[in-house]
């Protein structure tokens, strides 16, 4: 059995676990409910009702997907260690890195699957209300998918060495700050103090720049999106994910399961 097949076995089992979990369906229900709520919210406005509808829809897809990514992600490794299921799994011919990657891939696939369901609801609502759907929407959803993969990698990293409570605090905090690092850098750039400029620049380089995955404005306003608007964040995201997973694997390989 190849390494990829072992990772695939763990990944498919993780997907199956999520499919059989009630929590995911509850969150998915609320996400779709919020997308439909956009119809009523947009009806309250005389202007740009289609934009409001799609703003709310895109925000619902992003927020609920991130919530699922963090809440499921922080338990991803911790639960298996805490309940000792990891003992029997790691006694098989499979490395800890393969196990961790399998869990990661499984959760990313799960979140992408539920995201597809939300997108179907979003497209349905847009078509029913006559709101336009453009290439920018496809690009926006694609980058949300990349952002989610990055958030799952963050949650996996913290799940590999700390409790779900702390991991959700760290991952949630980093997701929130990650959407501000670009603004922080721009604010710092206008400062007269060199140290402030350097510090905010450093923060922007070290912490994830999650705003680079946000094409919500372009999609809702029907603005043009260039190829580099997609592939640059994609390369950045894949690089960041690789660093997070290598760090998670290094920490996980060194752990003692007492």
């Amino acid at each position: 059995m190849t390494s990829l097949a072992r990772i695939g076995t763990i990944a498919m089992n993780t997907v199956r676990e999520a499919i059989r979990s009630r929590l995911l369906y509850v969150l998915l229900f609320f996400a779709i409910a919020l997308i439909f709520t956009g119809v009523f919210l947009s009806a309250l406005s005389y202007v740009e009702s289609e934009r409001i509808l799609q703003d709310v829809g895109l925000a619902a897809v992003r927020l609920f997907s991130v919530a699922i990514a963090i809440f499921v992600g922080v338990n991803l490794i911790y639960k298996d260690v805490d309940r000792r299921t990891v003992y029997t799994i790691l006694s098989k011919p499979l490395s800890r890195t393969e196990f961790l990657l399998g869990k990661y891939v499984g959760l990313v696939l799960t979140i992408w699957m539920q995201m597809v369901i939300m997108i179907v609801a979003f497209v349905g609502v847009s078509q029913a209300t006559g709101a336009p759907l453009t290439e920018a929407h496809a690009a926006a959803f694609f980058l949300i998918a990349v952002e989610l993969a990055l958030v799952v990698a963050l949650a996996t990293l913290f799940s590999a060495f700390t409790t779900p409570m702390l991991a959700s605090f760290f991952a949630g905090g980093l997701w929130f700050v990650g959407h501000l690092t670009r603004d922080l850098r721009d604010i710092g750039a206008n400062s007269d103090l060199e140290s402030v400029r350097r510090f905010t620049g450093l923060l922007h380089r070290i912490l994830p720049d999650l705003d680079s995955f946000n094409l919500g404005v372009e999609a809702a306003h029907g603005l043009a999106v260039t190829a580099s608007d997609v592939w640059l964040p994609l390369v950045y995201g894949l690089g960041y994910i690789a660093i997070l997973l290598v760090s998670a694997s290094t920490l996980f390989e060194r752990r003692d399961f007492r």
Partner: protein
Amino acid sequence: MSVDPAGIVRVANLVKDFRPGFGLRRKRVLHAISFNVREGEIFGFVGPNGAGKTTTLKVLMGLIRANAGEASVLGCDVRETQFRRHVGFLPENPYFYDFLTGREILTFYAKLSGVARAQRADRVATLLDWVGLADAADARLRTYSKGMLQRVGIAQALVHDPTVVFLDEPMSGLDPIGRKEIRDLILRLRTEGKTVFMNTHILSDVEMVCDRVAIIVAGRITYEGAIEDFLEGDERGADVVIAGLAPEMGARLEKQFGACLRGHGYRIELRVAEKSVSDVLRMVLGAGAEVLSVTPHRVSLESIFLSAVEKGRSGESG
């Protein structure tokens, strides 16, 4: 795979330290322990709670890293992963993904263990039947009893037909029937030529199934060898039941032969060393008393174990 049959599992000078908290202070839980497990035997790794049995087993399974020393299974360093294709492991109080059914969980482990797709379904069905779970195969594990989960644990450890099987307290928490079933399964493994390494503190199970034992006390091995030698090493004797022995004669037997006298009045019982049995009988019969029975007596594993534990603990404090 060519492996020295005398060293299917080899542990040499293994040391493990834990940090109890966040401080720098370390607590040594394994003090340079060494032992070997031979091919085809049931090896009992025996010790009281907290002696270091599970820690040793976790080092062998690669779940924790030793600080020093060597540990190998089937000639491979335990830090490698590929040898585990030939190894099965049942942890203490095993927990499995309870959203899966018995059949699904065994299929999952069979895949991870590299069982070929063509044989997987047959192998899983055979194992389910073997451990008596064929009827519950398609029920979710969350509906299983503790005994059933233990049997799932045994089945997942054997699903890839391993050469060596490691069992951590396989009978703990089971009722007498469950214990007998697991014991029979272990004995069946020996007839199939498997090597079994079993952590336990239940001495009656050790006596019934193990060929060799190692006793670990406070992180140190105090004995390693065949269970028969272990019992032979201690003094044998006999319980002699006598009727009509005069009290002064009883006192004399106690003094002369170091016999242990129990009971009083007409019927008394004497525990004497094997070498003194003939002399005691001669003296008793000569005194006109009646010998009702002579029962050969062997010191129980439990009493030897307790004295080994005591010796180990006094060695630790000394």
